[in-house]
């Protein structure tokens, strides 16, 4: 199908959607819906139909849509009340509009009399009188949408004066709207032979130069047979944002010299342009879009009009590369991912049934099933890969942040990024931006030393922050490293003691001290700085990483710097889980949180009164949390020696042991939302479906630990209250 015909089909499809939207909206309003967004959506529906119809020159449809739209606009602006009677008319008008759409589509006839009748009714709704019909006349000169070889209209005006003198002085507003003097001059160049004079007399001393201000003015002589209208049209977009005078050349000659100081040497013109460009480059982050305003390229100066020059100033126009990518609705991809998730579950269920049926491992059925499993995995991986995107989109935002923080702290910083092409799930990328921003701020504000200190330590004044991404064993690993002074462990420890986070006599390893910065309530800045002290600490960073199923660790070397390492899953649709049993229930614990599993011995477990217990793990005591009790599956504690303990590391690097009845095994599970049909349940992160077809709950380890400790009790209470 030719592309235009395909778009025409799209238009009619879209019309059907818009008509449905229109009708639903009007019905909702009739039922009492007063949401302004409803009337907006109704208006947009008709507006879109009109817009598309105009492009295809469907004049009858455009005319009626226009009258309809005008009435809806009145309603949208509150001048027309949506009474039932009005809505009845609008609903009937919607039917007529639908008739017109179908007529335009299949060439059938419309009831002209009925259309005219409704159009009159719609106009009668307009409190300002029936003006809509006339207005539409003004929009009738809609050209056809045709694809002909590109050509730029060169006005062939009757020979008037032999040329024009154009004085042009941009105001700052012109540049603020991303218009460019250079481009306007180039456009003038298309109209005839031009000579450009730059007036730089307004340019202040370099030190007083405001990069946002406009200092320059130009006087351009255009010779040839261009008329005044086409000259003024060049400045159409900047009307009001510049001073503009257009006068016939003959008249100017009679007036004598222009008042501006002409700078006629094009070399000098460029020098000033380059100068200004440098000033701008210093004052503002460079951007490929920012052509310095005073850089009329030599090509634009004194060139004959060239109507055939390509629209693409950066090179020859060329055909887009053949279909290397396609755009797909995210919804479709997610539907596919859901289906593949079901396939994985089904395949697991089938395997389990076959095993139960007692087929031998080497039997044809079992082997076929193995192949199916392999294939299923591959399909799953491939489908997940569709949602994957390079981390570039979030890495790209960091250079600007680094410049800002560097400026605020007065520390020169160089940002080095690596692995921008590393891919990970779109949602992971979206949710990485905040923690990364915070970590990079921290790295500069707290990690890097002042230039003086660096000099004293024999380091270059410029600090380096490295941001890297790489795939490692099925996960993405992102590192933020600085070459600063490393963590000041003395200070961190004393702050932690001061804040009551650790006992004054606690014997902590270097690693444990470094990890204190992740504890809630820890903030290294005794001076709460503007940069890092926005009320969030590393605990928040850690929590957001964990919410993504990730882990964050720190390693630090005194005098050499610190490295934060984040390891994240490549997708949020599946999770590596440890399947456990608790009081007859099957539960899944995310493997990322589990440090090790152990079989408690009687001598290791000690009661602290009530149901509180601790377990000794190589000289340290960690809380032992009975998962069955925490989730309310049983009233009394399980004999620890009858169960298995999962040593986990939760928020703030704090450790705890979760006591479960038994471990069934490890497997990748498909994450299913509980909230979709129910809601969040405390202690439960999500659900999954196991091989036997039953739902198993995935543990929210941090919440279980927090609730069991009585820490974070506010949230726990609120959640518990909610379920009552």
């Amino acid at each position, binding site marked *: 199908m030719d592309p235009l015909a*395909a*778009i025409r089909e*799209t*238009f009619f499809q*879209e019309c059907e959607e818009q008509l449905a939207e229109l009708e639903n909206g009007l019905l909702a309003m009739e039922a009492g819906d007063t949401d302004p*967004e409803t009337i907006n*959506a109704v*208006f*947009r529906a008709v*507006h*879109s139909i*009109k*817009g*598309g119809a*105009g*492009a295809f020159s469907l004049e009858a449809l455009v005319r009626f849509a226009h009258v309809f739209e005008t009435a809806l606009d009145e309603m949208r602006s509150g001048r027309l009340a949506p009474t039932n009677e009005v809505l009845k008319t609008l609903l009937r008008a919607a039917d007529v509009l639908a008739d017109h759409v179908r007529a335009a589509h299949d060439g059938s006839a419309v009831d002209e009399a009925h259309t005219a009748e409704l159009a009159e009714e719609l106009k009668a709704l307009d409190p300002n009188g029936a003006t809509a019909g006339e207005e539409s006349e*003004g*929009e009738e000169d809609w*050209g056809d*949408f*045709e*694809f002909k070889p*590109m*050509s*730029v*209209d060169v006005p062939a005006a009757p020979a008037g004066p032999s040329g024009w003198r154009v004085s042009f002085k941009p105001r700052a507003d012109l540049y*603020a*709207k*991303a*218009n*460019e003097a*250079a*481009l*306007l001059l180039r*456009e003038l160049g298309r109209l005839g032979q031009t000579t450009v004079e730059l007036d730089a007399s307004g340019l202040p001393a370099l030190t007083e130069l405001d990069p946002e201000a406009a200092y320059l003015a130009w006087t351009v002589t255009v010779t040839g047979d261009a008329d005044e209208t086409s000259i003024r049209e*060049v400045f*159409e*977009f900047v009307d*009001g944002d510049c001073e503009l005078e257009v006068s016939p050349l003959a008249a100017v000659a009679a007036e004598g010299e222009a008042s501006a100081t002409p700078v006629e040497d094009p070399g000098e013109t460029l020098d000033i342009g380059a100068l200004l460009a440098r000033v701008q480059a210093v004052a*503002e*982050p460079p*951007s490929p*879009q920012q*052509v310095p305003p005073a850089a009329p390229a030599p090509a634009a100066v004194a060139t004959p009009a060239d109507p055939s020059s*390509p*629209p*693409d*100033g*950066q*090179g*020859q*126009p*060329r*055909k*887009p590369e053949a279909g290397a990518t396609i755009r797909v609705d995210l919804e479709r991809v997610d539907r596919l991912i859901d289906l593949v998730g079901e396939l994985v579950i089904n395949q697991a269920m089938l395997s389990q049934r076959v095993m139960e049926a007692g087929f031998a491992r080497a039997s044809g059925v079992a082997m076929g099933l193995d192949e199916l499993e392999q294939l299923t995995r591959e399909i799953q991986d491939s489908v997940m890969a569709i949602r994957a995107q390079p981390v*570039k*989109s979030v890495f*790209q*935002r960091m250079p*600007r942040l680094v410049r800002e923080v560097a400026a605020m702290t007065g520390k020169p910083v160089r940002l080095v990024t690596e692995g921008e092409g590393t891919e990970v799930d779109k949602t992971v990328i979206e949710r990485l931006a905040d923690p990364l921003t915070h970590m990079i701020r921290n790295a500069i504000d707290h990690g890097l030393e002042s230039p003086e200190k660096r000099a004293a330590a024999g380091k270059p004044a410029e600090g380096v922050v490295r941001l890297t991404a790489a795939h490692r064993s099925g996960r993405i690993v992102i590192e933020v490293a600085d070459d600063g002074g490393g963590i000041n462990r003395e200070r961190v420890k004393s702050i932690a003691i001061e804040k009551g986070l650790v006992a004054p006599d606690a014997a902590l390893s270097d690693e444990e001290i470094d990890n204190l910065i992740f504890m809630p309530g820890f903030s290294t800045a005794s001076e709460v700085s503007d940069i890092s002290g926005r009320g969030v600490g590393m605990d928040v960073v850690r929590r957001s990483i964990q919410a993504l199923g990730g882990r964050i660790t720190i390693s630090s070397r005194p005098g050499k710097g610190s490295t934060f390492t984040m390891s994240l899953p490549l997708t949020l649709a599946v999770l590596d889980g440890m399947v456990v049993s608790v009081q007859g229930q099957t539960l899944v614990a995310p493997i990322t949180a589990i440090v090790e599993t152990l079989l408690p011995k009687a001598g290791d477990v000690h009661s602290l009164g009530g149901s509180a217990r601790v377990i000794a793990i190589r000289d340290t005591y960690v809380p032992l949390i009975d998962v069955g009790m925490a989730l309310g599956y049983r009233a009394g504690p399980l004999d620890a020696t009858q169960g298995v303990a999962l040593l986990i590391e939760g928020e703030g690097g704090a450790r705890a042991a979760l006591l479960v009845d038994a471990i069934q095994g490890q497997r990748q599970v498909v994450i299913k939302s509980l909230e979709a049909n129910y809601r969040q349940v405390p202690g439960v992160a999500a659900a999954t479906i196991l091989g036997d077809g039953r739902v198993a709950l995935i543990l929210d380890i941090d919440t279980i630990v927090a609730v069991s400790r009585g820490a974070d009790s506010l949230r726990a209470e609120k959640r518990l209250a909610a379920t009552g």
Partner: protein
Amino acid sequence: MSMTVLTVDDSRTMREMLRLALTEAGYRVVQAEDGLHGLEVLAAEAPTVIVTDINMPRMDGFGFIEEVRSDPQYRGVPILVLTTESDAEKKNRARMAGATGWIVKPFNPVKLVDAIRRVAA
């Protein structure tokens, strides 16, 4: 490398028309369905020029232009608005928000490309 044009329009028909016209003219085209989506695509694709509709759900053209202009990184990106009407009020509001120029719908491909050439290097 050819220039990238970001088109922001809630109408699929209009998006496809813009894409056809612009790809024929040698531009690379990236698309968004409304202002919010436009901001996402903007961050990911760094277009040379933006062409945006005004009346859109979630975030309209005015809001979108203001957001774009409030980010120093994108201050220099030319933005052309599509107006169905040659409505002076909308045009002025768009300019106040920071629009570089406008294209009157229904556009013809020659005028569209011409407008882009006028604002982009």
